[in-house]
């Protein structure tokens, strides 16, 4: 972006062009979406970003970027551009006509008018953004760190970390690719893609929580997103320190790219698979229950004769008062990225979870899971920790506007 005045101009033109249509279109789209089945996509403005508490859409792209902006002013400009583009892309409308002196403002992938309410954009900041490049060291909340190497990891540096994370979600791939292409175009010279992973959710098979690619229902026991008090306790950051209070209303997000060795998994007996997860494969009930939402009663099974003490669900959430505040809001997708060197499918989980405190929550869960039997069938190879910034309050505000002094 530095030195590319043409792009800066383009940013302004596009943003103005679409903002005119914003208010009415977004509202008009809501009732139709509700009738069609999937819940409406939350609006762009608000105290928290969209794409966190709402149910996952059918598709996602998670992209990590490294910021290459030339200084604090360019970084500020990058945040402003990201805000404008996210606002425009989620709101929809007709892109501006730039006339004979420039290429078209929009790729045209979604037709002449961008649909409203089809997309969420969730921006996160990595710990590395707070190094000495932009003078932000004092603005880094104490809880933000670089994702460590966990004992069962096999991390590939090319798939880890980043200065920014951008998660796009929609029901269609073209919506996502259009958005990513648009955002990359408008921020060229200010940030570069470090890694990106596409993900998808699966429809209920046949009902209830979606299944992962091991065939098990995944994400059954999640905090209640409609319970505001629970979200305040488990998800949203509250920071009263003057230098870092900007983070209040944000949340820490963990992305983990976890290869599933599905060929190996398919060669394991059903009973052993179920004992590893602690749930039945067909219905998703805990092994001591009947329905997927049944709460396992570990106190009646202290040595794990029914639900092994090493099973995934029992280690991840022991359902004890002292582990209650380590619960995380999981929001995972499956990924499919081709085949490996030996012809096995390269598929797995694009795990993501949101929490108020990385150490108290994700890391506590992760350390309980070290060497669980399931680790033989998975390889965590990438991901990162980010702080999903507070929402953009209104049309005059931008992402992270309170971070920069």
């Amino acid at each position: 972006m530095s030195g590319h005045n043409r792009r800066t101009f383009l940013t302004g033109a596009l943003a103005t062009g679409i903002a005119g249509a914003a208010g009415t279109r977004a509202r008009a789209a809501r009732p139709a979406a509700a009738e069609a089945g999937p819940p409406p996509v939350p609006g762009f403005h608000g105290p928290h970003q969209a794409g966190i508490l709402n149910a996952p859409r059918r598709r996602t792209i998670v992209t990590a970027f490294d910021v290459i902006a030339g200084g604090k002013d360019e970084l500020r400009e990058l945040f402003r551009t990201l805000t404008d583009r996210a606002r425009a892309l989620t709101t929809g409308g007709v892109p501006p006509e730039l006339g004979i002196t420039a290429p078209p403002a929009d790729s045209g992938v979604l037709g002449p008018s961008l649909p409203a309410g089809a997309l969420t954009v969730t921006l996160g900041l990595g710990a590395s953004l707070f190094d000495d490049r932009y003078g932000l060291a004092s603005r880094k909340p104490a809880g933000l760190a670089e994702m460590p190497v966990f004992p069962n990891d096999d991390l590939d540096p090319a798939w880890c970390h980043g200065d920014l994370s951008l998660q796009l979600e929609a029901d269609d791939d073209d919506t996502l690719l259009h958005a990513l292409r648009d955002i990359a175009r408008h921020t060229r010279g200010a940030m570069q893609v470090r890694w990106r992973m596409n993900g998808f959710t699966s429809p209920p098979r046949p009902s209830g929580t979606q299944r992962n690619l091991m065939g098990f229902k995944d994400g059954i026991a999640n905090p209640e997103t409609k319970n505001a008090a629970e979200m305040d306790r488990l998800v949203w950051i509250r920071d009263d320190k003057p230098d870092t209070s900007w983070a209040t209303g944000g949340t820490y997000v963990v992305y983990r790219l976890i290869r599933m060795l599905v060929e190996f998994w398919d060669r394991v007996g059903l009973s052993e698979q179920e004992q590893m997860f602690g749930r039945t494969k067909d219905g998703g009930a805990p092994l001591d229950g009947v329905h997927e939402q049944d709460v396992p009663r570990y106190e009646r099974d202290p040595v794990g004769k029914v639900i092994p003490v090493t099973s995934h669900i029992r280690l991840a959430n022991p359902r004890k008062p002292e582990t209650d505040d380590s619960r995380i809001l999981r929001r995972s997708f499956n990924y499919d990225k081709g085949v490996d060197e030996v012809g096995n499918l390269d598929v797995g989980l694009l795990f993501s979870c949101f929490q108020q405190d990385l150490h108290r929550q994700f890391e506590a869960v992760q350390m309980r899971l070290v060497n669980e039997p399931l680790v033989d069938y998975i390889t965590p190879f990438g991901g990162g920790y980010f702080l999903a910034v507070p929402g953009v309050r209104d049309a005059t505000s931008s992402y992270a506007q309170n971070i920069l002094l």
Partner: protein
Amino acid sequence: MEFRRPGTVILACLLLATGCATGCATAGAGERASPPKPATPAAPVVVQVSASHCGEGWTNPHAGQQTLMLTNTGDAPSGADLIGVPGGAVHAELEGLGPGVTRPMRVSLAQGTYAIRCEIDERDPITGPSVTITGAGAGGPATTPITYADLFAPAKHYGEYVAGGLDTLLARTKTLARAVDRGDLAAARKAWLPAHLAYESLGSAYGTFGDFDGSINGGPAGLPGGVHDKDFTGLHRVEYGLWHDESAKKLRPITDRLLKDVKSLHDDFPDERLDPGDLPLRAHEILENTLRFELTGRSDEGSGTTLATTAANVKGTRVTIGVLRPLLDDRYPGLKQVDEHLDRLDGLLAAQHHGGTWTPVDRLDPRVRESINGAVSGLLEELAPIAEILFPRRTK
């Protein structure tokens, strides 16, 4: 290349069960049991699992594919098998059915006589009433269960193989360490592969070696410092140094540590019990790791010898199958094909062995590489049932 998959979980359950075989054989007469409503023709068949009502409720037996709902009406966790009478071949099983829990048992049964056997925690198994099925309908496979004790002899034989292999490993590691000691890195590079292959052919034993497996043959994965991490030790660390121009001075402490670890493993092994329950799992797990780490080239730290490792892993697999063969002969019709496919794989690998060197996987002709990958993958599909067939289902 670690194995963490728990054969030991099976062991723990079985020990609890056998521990009871002598003292708690009397059936619990006072057990609470609330029989479910009798099944109507439209309702699913609900069969009880408990000490006092084992197998009751299996009404309207019929041939063909079906689902029985098994409900634990007792007060202790229980396993349940659907067995043939007489003979006791197992047609279907459920593990860890908790009190009050109902779970489906899917099975295909031909005409014959069957029963439910309840394996209640801390009791001798109880066999329910016999049920006779008539009429047409195809049955599914069944297996004659083995006991944990049936695996003792194979484990003993495998242990002898490992003890011999550790002698070889120690001798070859000494050769490697001596070469590094006198600063002859060319000789060290020559001595490295034989030492590594001695370890890689031990196959089924890795799970028994505990931390030694990581210190002697671990990779840099999971270590914050990668190949330069202080906890990256052993044969692959030495490989990294020998093929990345590290000096003898730098390598000496690393080979010293390796030799020390190999000596400790060698001396400890007689005391380390090879868990018999691991052997049927290892029948496919050795080559699972081969496919994942060797044929991808992932474990290579510079020597380009992962096909040699593959051949050593095949040897370990052959010995594993060899010691299990007496149990498999009558139980696994696919065994002959396994043997043929192991021979074919060895042939494919031998073609890449040129005197003292092996073709690195990334320099294989693409079609040859596909053939090797496919041969291992196909074998894995044929080896995986061994873990199910030789799961110790009976306590005595």
